[in-house]
């Protein structure tokens, strides 16, 4: 083949394929967005999907669980204390004769709600502060970041405990305390992302077109960091659930007759040597929820991180 000289390749050997404008423009495969692509990757990750299913299942049970039994989560019954799990009381009863099935799922409402609401508010405040700080830079950035750095140096649990001592116990104080201590990490993360993004051409284009600062931040910069924010949000839910459980365990959290998983575990720990189920049931739910969320967060990070794409 290589030895052939040019004369032997005649003009007739070539045929004109032609240019079909329509075919050129046709898209060979359906285009998928960033989020569709991420979802496709996440679906292939069996471990992460299992985590997602468990979280959905627990959320569903937190909504309907308390209504599946005739017993109210607050009603004490002196004649049926410390009953082991049975057909009548599916998860048994506690030292005051309260039905633990009802208390566990009412506790799930409180624990999951605190976890999700606190993590969400952390993200909102963190994104606002981090976004503004990163976008405007200069003096604004310096002042905000110095404040954040100093607050960040005070241990998280110390801030949360201080807030709980001052605000008193209950669900709202818990959420406030967790948010006061928790938004700093997100603010730093978002600021770092915005600093990288704001020098890119699409931001310049938006500026040239006369977009306002708020529009650039919220329509151009934040949507581009949403993946990182979402992963961090997922990872911070188990942290918030753990903190709620920790605080309830040391007596600074949810007050009876309200229940939460941490508080059930705290009471269970007092009597578990005789009635192990009173601790192991809430312990199982706390651990599996945190495990599921961590696995889901890992999966999301793999699905959303563009650096891992080939």
């Amino acid at each position, binding site marked *: 083949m290589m030895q052939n000289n040019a004369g032997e390749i005649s003009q007739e050997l070539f045929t004109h394929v032609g240019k079909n404008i329509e075919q050129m423009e046709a898209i060979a495969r359906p285009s998928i967005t960033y989020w569709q692509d991420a979802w496709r990757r996440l679906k292939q990750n069996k471990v992460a999907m299992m985590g997602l299913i468990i979280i959905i299942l627990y959320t569903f049970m937190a909504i309907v669980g308390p209504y599946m039994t005739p017993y109210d989560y607050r009603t004490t019954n002196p004649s049926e204390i410390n009953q082991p799990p049975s057909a009548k009381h599916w998860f048994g009863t506690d030292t005051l004769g309260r039905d633990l099935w009802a208390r566990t799922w009412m506790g799930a409402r409180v624990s999951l709600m605190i976890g999700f609401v606190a993590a969400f508010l952390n993200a909102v405040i963190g994104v606002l502060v981090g976004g503004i700080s990163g976008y405007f830079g200069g003096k604004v950035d310096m002042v905000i970041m110095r404040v954040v750095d100093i607050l960040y*140096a005070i241990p*998280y*649990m110390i801030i949360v405990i201080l807030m709980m001592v001052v605000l008193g116990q209950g669900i709202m104080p818990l959420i406030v305390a967790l948010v006061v201590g928790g938004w700093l990490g997100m603010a730093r993360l978002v600021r770092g992302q915005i600093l990288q993004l704001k020098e890119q051409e699409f931001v310049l284009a938006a500026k040239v077109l006369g977009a306002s600062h708020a529009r650039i931040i919220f329509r151009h910069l934040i949507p581009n960091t949403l993946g990182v924010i979402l992963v961090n949000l997922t990872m911070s839910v188990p942290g918030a659930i753990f903190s709620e459980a920790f605080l309830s365990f*040391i007596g600074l959290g949810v007050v009876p007759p309200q229940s939460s998983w941490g508080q059930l*575990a*705290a009471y269970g720990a007092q009597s578990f040597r005789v009635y192990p189920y009173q601790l192991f049931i809430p312990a199982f739910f706390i*651990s599996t929820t*945190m495990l599921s969320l961590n696995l889901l967060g890992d999966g999301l990070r793999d699905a959303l991180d563009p650096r891992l794409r080939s």
Partner: protein
Amino acid sequence: MGRYILNRLVVSLITAWVLVTIVFFLVRLLPGDPFTSEKITPEIKQNMMRYYGFDKPLHIQYIRYISNLLKGDLGYSLRYQNRTVNEVIRQAFPYSADLGIRAVIFASIVGITLGIIAALNRNKSLDYISMFIAIVGISVPSFVIGPLLQYVFSIKLKLLPVAQWKGFAYTIMPTFALSLGSIALMARLMRASMLDVVNQDYIKTAKSKGLSPTQIVWKHQIRNAILPVVTVLGPVTATLLTGTFVVEQIFAIPGLGKFYIIGIQNLDYSMVLGMTVFYGLFLIAANFIVDIIYGIIDPRIRIAGK
């Protein structure tokens, strides 16, 4: 180096001052104004007056509070006439520190080893097993693992004492329960750091020099990979020390965490705040020391910090 240390010192001092100032103003926001409640005996009220000077203007109170702290005086109990925060700390903190130091050492050794094993066997079963242990460790809180250990090893198998703090056998379960979460954190970090280092040019150089794989792993990879892991020692110490609240409660260890919980249950706010200030300042100091160590072992940090 001198400039780096000075810089970290100034930041730590400002942080300590901010913490102390926040606590000072929080005391004035306490629910139900505990200092004027009827349950308080005149002696305790006198203690409070002496310590906080509530009859004086705010700025005098503030100066007095700061100077008390500078003298190392952390305040009085609201419940017990003659109990000061300092006495409680002197009596109980050695137990907490003992438990905490054991946990830091245990977590570092096991966590780093687990991370190295995982990274060297990347995408093989040992990696998956190590990382599964790590993610379970992150997800299972100490107040779950503690009672579980007690149930299995003390009540069922009768191998270890259930609770208290009277010798080495008593320390095994609390140390493990306390450090599990940090083991997991350090293992994940060490694995990531090891995999990061593998792609560096100096590893290629070492390979092309013809060094044996063992030499490369020990002398080049692990030594460099350990550096970023040192930075989390500050936060890990904080997690472990606050973790002692729960673990001491579960294992009936007479440490500071137990008094902390008793203080909370008794609504002894001034006790709780005094101990919180102590913990906060202690951890800020610990962070400062970790920063300095990091600056010594990694010269790049000192230069970047200028």
